[in-house]
């Protein structure tokens, strides 16, 4: 069976990202999954267990300080060489900033088509995308080269399929041009134990209706009680209530969790662009006419500062 290359993404805090497990699950529809770890020395060994559990038949390890110390260009070079060598049936990456950037460079290097933000992929390479704030479903195919696809997190349910992969070390031969963009410093910011926003199964977001930065504690409390991530609307971010990295919507993150809770968010189209494909949507807003209610499976018209404490109390009782 032909190999399908899956480019692995991992974080310091949580190891292999959930989206990588989704990619391994998806890869099995097309061929034999080979996980590609691109990182600093020792990166692959730490991740191998999880990759094997989710069906990686082979692990390619490209480990080098050059990869760690630069932006994505050396990774794309390693991957392009690997694609030329093994002629895979498909190359799958996460639709994260980094995944898309590697894919973009790879598309140019190989003169190959590219499909991003894919939510589903058939065995024949037909990809499903959701466009225009979730309003349009598009089915596309790469027509030049192999299927080169980036998958939006939370699109596929990861399924374990234990395998016993061997590890193949890859040479990292970065060009001078690959080394032009250097990483000077990586700063990890304390985020506690909350899941990463785009990967979370539950997202609880606050909007302008939260009123001020201090009140965001209410949003965090509900998120923590539900085991979810915290998000914010652009209005809340622009008002300085919550940091930009948590912004959901057009110029922020796109999320597609099992449950999206919108608190004090009116639901402008730019916000809906980032959360419309959530499976279940719950909203609390004092304005009965807020457009968010058009999407909500369960909506509460009421005062957040009465509804939320009561809800928090009730969740505690039930736990």
């Amino acid at each position, binding site marked *: 069976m032909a190999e399908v290359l899956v480019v692995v993404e991992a*974080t310091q805090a949580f190891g292999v990202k959930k989206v990588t497990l989704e990619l391994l699950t998806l890869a099995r529809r097309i061929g034999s999954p080979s996980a590609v770890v691109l990182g600093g020395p020792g990166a692959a060994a730490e991740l191998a267990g999880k990759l094997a559990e989710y069906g990686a038949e082979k692990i390619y390890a490209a480990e080098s300080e050059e990869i760690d110390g630069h*932006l*994505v*260009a050396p990774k*794309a070079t390693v991957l392009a060489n690997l694609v030329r060598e093994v002629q895979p049936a498909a190359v799958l990456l996460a639709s*994260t900033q980094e995944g*898309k*950037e590697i894919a*973009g*460079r790879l*598309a*140019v290097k190989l*003169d*190959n*088509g*590219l499909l*991003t*933000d894919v939510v589903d992929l058939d065995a024949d390479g037909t990809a499903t995308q*959701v466009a*225009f704030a979730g*309003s*349009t*479903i*598009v*089915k596309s*195919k*790469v*027509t030049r080269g192999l299927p080169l696809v980036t998958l939006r997190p939370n699109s596929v349910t990861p399924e374990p399929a234990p395998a016993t992969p061997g590890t193949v070390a890859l040479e990292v031969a970065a060009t001078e041009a690959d080394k*032009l*963009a250097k990483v*000077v410093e*990586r*700063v990890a910011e304390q985020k506690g134990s909350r899941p990463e926003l*785009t990967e979370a199964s*539950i997202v609880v977001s606050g909007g302008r209706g939260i009123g001020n930065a201090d009140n965001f504690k209410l949003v965090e409390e509900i998120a923590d009680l*539900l085991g979810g991530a915290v998000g914010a609307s652009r209005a809340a971010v622009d008002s300085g209530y919550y940091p930009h990295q948590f912004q959901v919507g057009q*110029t922020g993150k796109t999320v597609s969790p099992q*449950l999206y809770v919108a608190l004090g968010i009116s639901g402008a189209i*730019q916000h809906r*662009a980032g959360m*419309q494909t959530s499976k279940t*949507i719950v909203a*609390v807003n004092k304005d*009965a006419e807020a457009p968010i*209610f*058009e*999407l909500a*499976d*369960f909506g*509460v*018209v*009421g005062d957040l500062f009465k*509804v*939320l404490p*009561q*809800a*928090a109390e*009730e*969740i505690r009782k*039930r736990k």
Partner: protein
Amino acid sequence: MNIVVLVKQVPDSGAERNLTSDDNTVDRGSANNVINEMDEYAIEEALKIKEAHGGEVTILTMGPDRATESIRKALSMGPDAAVHVVDDALAGSCAVATSKVLAAALGTLNADLILCGAESTDGRVQVLPHMLAERLGVAALTGARKLTVDGASLTAERQTEEGYEVVSAATPAVVSVWDTINEPRYPSFKGIMAAKKKPVRTLSLADLGVSADEVGFAGATSAVVEHSKRPPRSAGTKITDEGTAGTQLVEYLVTEKFV
């Protein structure tokens, strides 16, 4: 510093947008077309760098004739000149082909710094800065929320999932910016009047030495097989709080097995 800012005209993201049924492309004819919002931040950043370090700011747009409106709007903010790549054969170009054409145009402009928005509101693909950097053999610093220019040295701060990164490169380089980097200025009346007289040079594919079969539908590397409108979400239960809505909300979450 010679700065080129990439500007894309897109359908207004605040209104309904569609794909056409005849050729599966974005329906731009019936839409209210505007400057891609994130590109305005790139223009602002370019103008700030020019004000601090001197130089020239040129707008580069690839798009049909009507993109002229967006070019004039961009110029009204203060850039010096614009280049408009326009050719009927470009319709339907994929990202790979678009990067080829823009790289060819940039090849004629001798830019020290190429600035663009981190993504467009229509495609939201985010790959163009790296595709251009790959073709031009220059560095790409993407998603900058802060950019510092010191001579030929560029330092950017970019958001990551775990915090942020400080990244650096020497010019020439491509830098894409997020909307957290600055607050774009509004065009002044004087700026709007001046924009009408600023030079806008048009380039065709022949001018760039790119063949028509490498771009547009003919040269596309991916194709839309079919598209449909997603059925709108239907509203579910809506209750008005009469003192127990918090409890009812949790009851719903329990029913749906979230609690």
